[in-house]
């Protein structure tokens, strides 16, 4: 068959590869191949099409073509004619870009197929190479890896540990591991001061619990359930396998990308990990249920915790911020199946995972945990919290006539009618409502405002003040915590944090709050006075006295500190000194918003001591 290109002639430059010179040739496409005829030499040579190689994958629109022979790379032929590529491609279609690329793609597609087969095979046969490698790692190496992981997590966080909490954790761990398997399982559990609600099993039989988890849990049984679940991971060597897998996948990614990283690979990596996690979670759950049963601990707590995470069981703990929940859900998805599995367990005789004392020790290991229910708040006779440095919170007695507040409330309400999400108006109304002692309503406005503007520390602080006014101390603490998280150095939030702890009679925590204020804000003298009050309530009268003295050294006009001194002396049995202190209090003009309290206390106690007030 004849093709249109038959017989076409072109001018080319030929190099024989012996020197860097070319000589002109005339090129003709024939059925046998390219026929090259030298201008000066009569001899012709023919390059058959199947021996041809082009210097670049050939496009039909190429302006010129450089050819060489597969077996003799020194000889080249250059044809600078825009129509040459098109006619040559008809004869030698193997030189086209598409065909050349297809040749280059073959190895890649073969690798792709092999990897797909391998992954599919592992999946179908339920094999885990990483697990197999993990099983052969010596224990010492696993422990070292685990310690490195814990060290990296504990870098910015303290390990919460008191003698009592250590004992409680150890006993619970032993109870569960004794029921774990025939082999002895040595597990070590560490509690970290971390608000995140989570638990991690790390290599070498080590487990991390977070403060957030322990405080979020309603009962010790819930913690036992989570711990048993993590021990299940430990039994299955999931953490070790996870690290082996991560390293293997990282190496494979490096290999696949040849140093050129991309996002696509990371997504793939994450997906594999997620799928694996689901199966691992189910295995860990099965172990957990077995351990709980063997240890005689009710599995109900485990299920309760799942539901708590799902938000079905807000309990006394109200809600957590979404970000924290997301973290839990992502790594430990408590699916309906898992809850159903736990709930379907037949009941068996069970005892609480921890005694009340142990449970308290565990919850208080990090310092200031919320108690199950607020203790009865201190009576009105107790000295009120001192002034904040700036009048951010509402003053306890309303000095403003209600009409004023009423007008402000009406104004803000009007603004909110046009824009219900006006944070400034909400804030203004809340302030007015608080002035008017409508603390419930003020709280509602502040809550709404802080939902709209969750990063505003001042709103959380104001919420805390209203909650404190309503004596909802646990919630107040959390609001102050949030304010302090957003503005770590906030004096007022820290001060009120201390007030609430004192009101809850968590004196150690209150001491920590004021201690921190004294350390970071040495000029904030109220911290000394407030700490003095805490010491007095703890019966540490010498310490109390020293703090009141310090307060007065810094400010001779601090009325309430004289009264505080009187109270301390009175407790210590120094009647005369007490009387003198109370008299000085009354002789000093009222200063700060606890001044009235100072005068009232002095008058009352002088009367009780049978001394006439001046």
């Amino acid at each position, binding site marked *: 068959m004849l093709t249109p290109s038959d017989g076409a002639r072109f001018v080319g*430059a030929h*190099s*024989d*590869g*012996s*020197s*860097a*010179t*070319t000589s002109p040739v005339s090129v003709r496409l024939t059925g046998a191949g390219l026929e090259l005829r030298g201008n000066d030499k009569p001899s012709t040579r023919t390059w058959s099409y199947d021996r041809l190689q082009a*210097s*670049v*994958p050939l*496009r039909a*629109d*190429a*302006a*010129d073509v*450089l050819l*060489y022979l597969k077996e003799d*790379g*020194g*000889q*080249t032929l*250059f044809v*600078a004619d825009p129509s040459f590529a098109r006619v040559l491609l008809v004869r030698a279609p193997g030189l086209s870009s598409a065909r*050349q*690329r297809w040749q*280059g*793609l073959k*190895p*890649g*597609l073969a*690798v*792709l197929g092999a*990897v797909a087969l391998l992954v599919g095979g592992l999946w179908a046969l339920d094999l885990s190479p990483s697990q197999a490698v993990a099983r052969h790692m010596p224990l010492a*190496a696993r422990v*070292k*890896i685990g310690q*490195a992981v814990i060290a990296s997590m504990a870098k910015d966080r303290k390990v919460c540990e008191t003698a009592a909490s250590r004992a409680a954790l150890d006993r619970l761990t032993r109870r569960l591991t004794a029921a774990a398997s025939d082999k002895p399982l040595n597990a070590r559990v560490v509690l970290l001061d971390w608000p995140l609600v989570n638990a991690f099993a790390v290599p070498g039989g080590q487990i991390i619990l977070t403060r957030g988890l322990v405080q979020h849990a309603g009962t010790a049984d819930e913690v036992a359930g989570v711990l048993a679940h993590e021990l299940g991971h430990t039994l299955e060597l999931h953490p070790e396998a996870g690290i082996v897998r991560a*390293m293997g996948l990282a*190496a494979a990614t*490096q*290999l*696949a*990308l*040849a*140093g*050129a990283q*991309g*996002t*696509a690979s990371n997504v793939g990596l994450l997906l594999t990990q997620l799928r694996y996690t689901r199966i691992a979670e189910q295995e860990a759950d099965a172990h957990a249920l077995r351990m709980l049963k063997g240890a005689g601990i009710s599995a109900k707590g485990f299920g309760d915790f799942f539901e708590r995470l799902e938000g079905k069981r807000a309990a006394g703990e109200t809600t957590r911020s979404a970000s924290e929940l997301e973290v839990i859900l992502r790594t430990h998805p408590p699916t309906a199946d898992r809850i159903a599995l736990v709930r379907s367990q037949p009941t068996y005789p069970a005892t609480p995972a921890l005694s009340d004392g142990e449970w308290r020790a565990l919850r208080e290991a990090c310092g200031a945990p919320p108690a199950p229910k607020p203790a009865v708040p201190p009576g009105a006779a107790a000295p009120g919290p001192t002034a904040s440095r700036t009048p951010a919170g509402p003053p306890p007695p309303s000095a403003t006539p209600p009409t004023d507040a009423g007008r402000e409330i009406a104004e803000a309400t009007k603004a909110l009618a046009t824009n219900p999400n006006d944070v400034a108006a909400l804030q203004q109304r809340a302030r007015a409502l608080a002035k008017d002692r409508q603390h419930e309503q003020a709280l509602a406005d502040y809550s709404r405002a802080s939902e709209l503007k969750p990063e505003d520390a001042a709103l959380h602080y104001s919420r805390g003040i209203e909650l404190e006014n309503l004596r909802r101390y646990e919630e107040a603490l959390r609001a102050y915590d949030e304010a302090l998280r957003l503005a*770590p*150095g906030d004096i007022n939030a820290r001060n009120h944090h201390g007030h609430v702890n004192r009101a809850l009679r968590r004196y150690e925590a209150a001491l920590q709050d004021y201690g921190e204020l004294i350390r*970071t*804000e040495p000029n904030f003298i109220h911290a000394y006075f407030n700490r003095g009050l805490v010491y007095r309530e703890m019966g540490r009268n010498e310490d109390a006295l020293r703090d009141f003295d310090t307060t007065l050294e810094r400010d001779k006009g601090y009325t309430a500190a004289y009264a505080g001194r009187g109270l301390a002396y009175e407790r210590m049995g120094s009647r005369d000194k007490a009387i003198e202190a109370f008299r000085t209090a009354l002789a000093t003009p009222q200063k700060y918003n606890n001044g009235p309290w100072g005068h009232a206390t002095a008058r009352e106690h002088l009367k009780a001591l049978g001394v006439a007030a001046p």
Partner: protein
Amino acid sequence: MSLGAAAVDPAVPPADAPHISWVDPPGGFAGLSILNGVLRILTLGVYHFWGKTEVRQRIWSAVRIDGEPLEYRGTGGELLRGFLVVFFLVLLPLGLASFAASLLGPVTHAIYSFAFWALLLLLSGIGIHRARRYRLSRTRWRGIRGGLSGRSRGFAWTYLWTMLLVPLTLGWILPWRAVRLQRALFIVTHFGDNAFTFTGVAGPLYRRFWLVWVSAIVLIVTASTAIGGILASGARAPSAPRPAPAMLHLSAGQTTGIVGIVLVGFLIFAMIRAWYSARMLNYFAAHTKLQGVSFTLRATAPSLVWLVASNYLIRVLSLGFLSALAEARSMRYIVDRLACDGAIAWERIAQNPDALLKRGEGLAEAFNVDAF
């Protein structure tokens, strides 16, 4: 009267000097670059080596000497084999050793880190040399091969010890080092059986380098003072009464100011640095000779800054998908500004007798020291 003096205009090369030019391939580089990226993902990265080969084929082919193209004859398979060897013999053992070292004590880890970096530098030197040898041996013009003789080890050693002297000499060794490395590479570079020569010395480079060095110091001091001033003005503001803030709270104005100072300082330095680099490149070309004929390169500071900045943006904004386009632009930058100062007797250049390397440039790719 001297006829010769009036006739020689250094800006115009003699008529019989080879003409070096750039001819864009049909379709350009953007489409190819993207296609390669897609195929690479599709094949779990394996196509990378074939894609890279095609890009080189097209870049080489765009470079013309007297209208005839350079040829790149490397293959994807060679590059893949080179990479696999480096991966299993170097990268994987290094990775495992790093992991093991991280479990040991801090002293062991420090010793390991030092050894690791020294080894990495040494391997980088070997990688640069081997990659150059591979590429030159796969480069042809009129069927004649390029080549690089000499041993990689010697070059790597020079590369390492001069690198270690950079901090010790506060950078003053840099021009001397650049000349030394350039010479080490070029006196062993061949086209066919003809060797290049390199006659450059470091002295002329220092005439510009001292300004780079001084300006770096001046810019750092000036920028630090200015940033310090901005921070101090913030600390005195009445809205921040706390004596010891745990973290710096910067206003929007302060942030803009600091970013602005850093950017302006960086840009000024880049211009001065480019002014030096342009001089260096041009000087290197002028002192590189083939058959006693030298080259003229007309690189300028603004064009060099533009090339580097625009290539950086192309790579970043395209997430690496257009990196081949950036590579082509770099090559074109040189080719467009390069001329040969005299005639070359092509007939006196015979085929390069060197044996060919069997594998591609795995090391250079692994340590990211290759340019093309």
